[in-house]
């Protein structure tokens, strides 16, 4: 049986009077792709920011490899190989593709050295050949799909054990979405990275996920195997626009 790499136990968080997360529970097992679904404002991004240490929850526990990281600083969490790819890609637009990738290796750059980082970049290029073609181009001038690939590749440079992906398909054409999500699956299959994925494209994300959670008003309202959720009448109606 797979052990959880991440466990969220009763986490609550509020932005002033607005309760964004309310006694939320979920877990992600080693080697899984878990999809986190929910309408806008359900609290998905807030949850990822809490896990990544960019926000600090009001109560509850965030256990990463059985260690509570709830009060840990973001930099330390990255060093523990828990990496967030934030929404809207957020590549460093005024920097080249190579500089972006170098920054991905920021926390272990000193330890591994330039040569090792260069080798890691070459490995990343085998996964994302288009980035090698554009390696000297400013990241801000890449297309949306290429920027998303760069954002994921940059995260790979940090050698993640757990990757938090916040809406990687946002604003991308359907064909590109498919391509990006294929890359996400490839990360798990080839590199063994565990992935917690937020995605508006419910159908596409459940197709690559093992399990899924449905969030509403800061809590988990439904969970199950991805395939079951994909065929669940309620999920279909709410997210896919199908009536039963």
């Amino acid at each position, binding site marked *: 049986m797979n052990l959880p790499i991440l466990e969220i136990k009763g986490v609550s968080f509020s932005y002033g009077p607005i309760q964004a997360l309310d006694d939320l529970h979920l877990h992600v097992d080693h080697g899984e792709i878990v999809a986190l679904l929910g309408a806008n404002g359900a609290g998905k991004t807030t949850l990822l920011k809490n896990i990544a240490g960019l926000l600090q929850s009001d109560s509850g526990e965030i256990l990463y490899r059985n260690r509570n990281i709830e009060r840990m600083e973001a930099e330390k969490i990255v060093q523990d190989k828990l990496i967030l790819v934030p929404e809207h890609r957020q590549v460093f637009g005024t920097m080249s593709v190579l500089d972006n990738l170098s920054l991905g290796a*920021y926390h272990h750059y000193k330890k591994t050295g330039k040569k090792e980082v260069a080798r890691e970049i070459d490995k990343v290029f085998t996964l994302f050949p288009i980035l090698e073609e554009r390696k000297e181009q400013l990241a801000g001038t890449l297309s949306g799909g290429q920027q998303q690939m760069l954002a994921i590749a940059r995260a790979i440079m940090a050698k993640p054990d757990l990757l938090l992906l916040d809406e990687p398909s946002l604003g991308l054409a359907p064909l590109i979405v498919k391509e990006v999500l294929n890359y996400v699956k490839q990360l798990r299959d080839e590199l063994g990275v565990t992935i917690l994925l937020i995605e508006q494209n419910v159908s596409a994300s459940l197709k690559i996920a093992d399990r899924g959670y449905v969030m509403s008003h800061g809590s988990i309202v439904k969970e199950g195997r991805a395939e079951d959720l994909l065929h669940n009448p309620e999920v279909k109606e709410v997210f896919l626009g199908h009536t039963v």
Partner: protein
Amino acid sequence: MKRKGIQQMSWKGLAAFTVLILILPFLLSTSLMITKATFAGIYTIVAVGLGLLMGFAGQISLGQAAFYGVGAYSTAILTATFGISPWLSLLIAITAPALIAYILGHTMARLHGYYLAMATLAFGIVIHVLLVEWKGFTKGASGFYGIPKLELFGFTFTQGISYYYLVWAFALLVIILSLNIIHSRIGRALRSIHDSEVASSSMGVDTGRYKMQVFIISAMFAGIAGWLFAHMSYSISPGSFGLDGSILFLTMVVLGGSTSVWGAVFGALLITAISSFVQALGSKISFITSDFEHVLYGLILMLVVIFLPQGLFPAIAAKLKPFLEFTGRKKKSGSITAVKGDQRA
């Protein structure tokens, strides 16, 4: 591996700029022009520090003139009142602004959003009031007189060519230090903070620490400039260190472009030239007063923000790109050197 991009170009630019600085006094016809060129060096030191803060850490300081004033008044009080050596007071002129910047930055919850701009604005006002009202130490609004001249191994630096070279030696050191910072791993981290703080944190960059460090460095640079200004002028008054001064420094950086060290240098030189021109014009045309200068700076600031948000230097550098390899960091970065090549010479 051959160096590419910004690294190679910045150092080439530095060499060309140094030669220009060395020969400039021989091209200037009057001692007033040499004094103006010396002031340009002092302003360059402040502007480069502010440029690092704005262009690389994404923060705005509206109190840079106050740090400049702290540097100037620390050395004035220590040397003229307590008889301490000016070279020893240089240490205080650097550490006092640094300490204030640390306290200010620390209390501003790791410098998020526009809090630093507001805090430095308030700080600038407080310092100005202190300089005017704390007459026992600062001699108040009438100014502090009798600041000793700088001497080194029996040589006295007086206003003119010797002080010009002294100021520009400091300015070049500041430029070199800044180029080193921005071309290092720290510089890359700073640029990432400017581009996206969330993504930067997600990559493990301690954004608060870096922003604090750059804020302290910018305050230290302003302190050095204040020290140079005090020993050049022999007398200082609070008027030089108020909000007007801070806005002047801000204008230099915005005009030149905050995304490269050279932008700040260019802005400082250009504003000094404009100021000299307006003052010369003012001696001939009665309605052109110092208030006119303020209006002109406001206008320049507005026009640049609207039409050239990246500043003049990157725009000019882009036009000259085919002819000169002398651009700021907006150029396609030579990041491959950061990964595979030698970081710095």
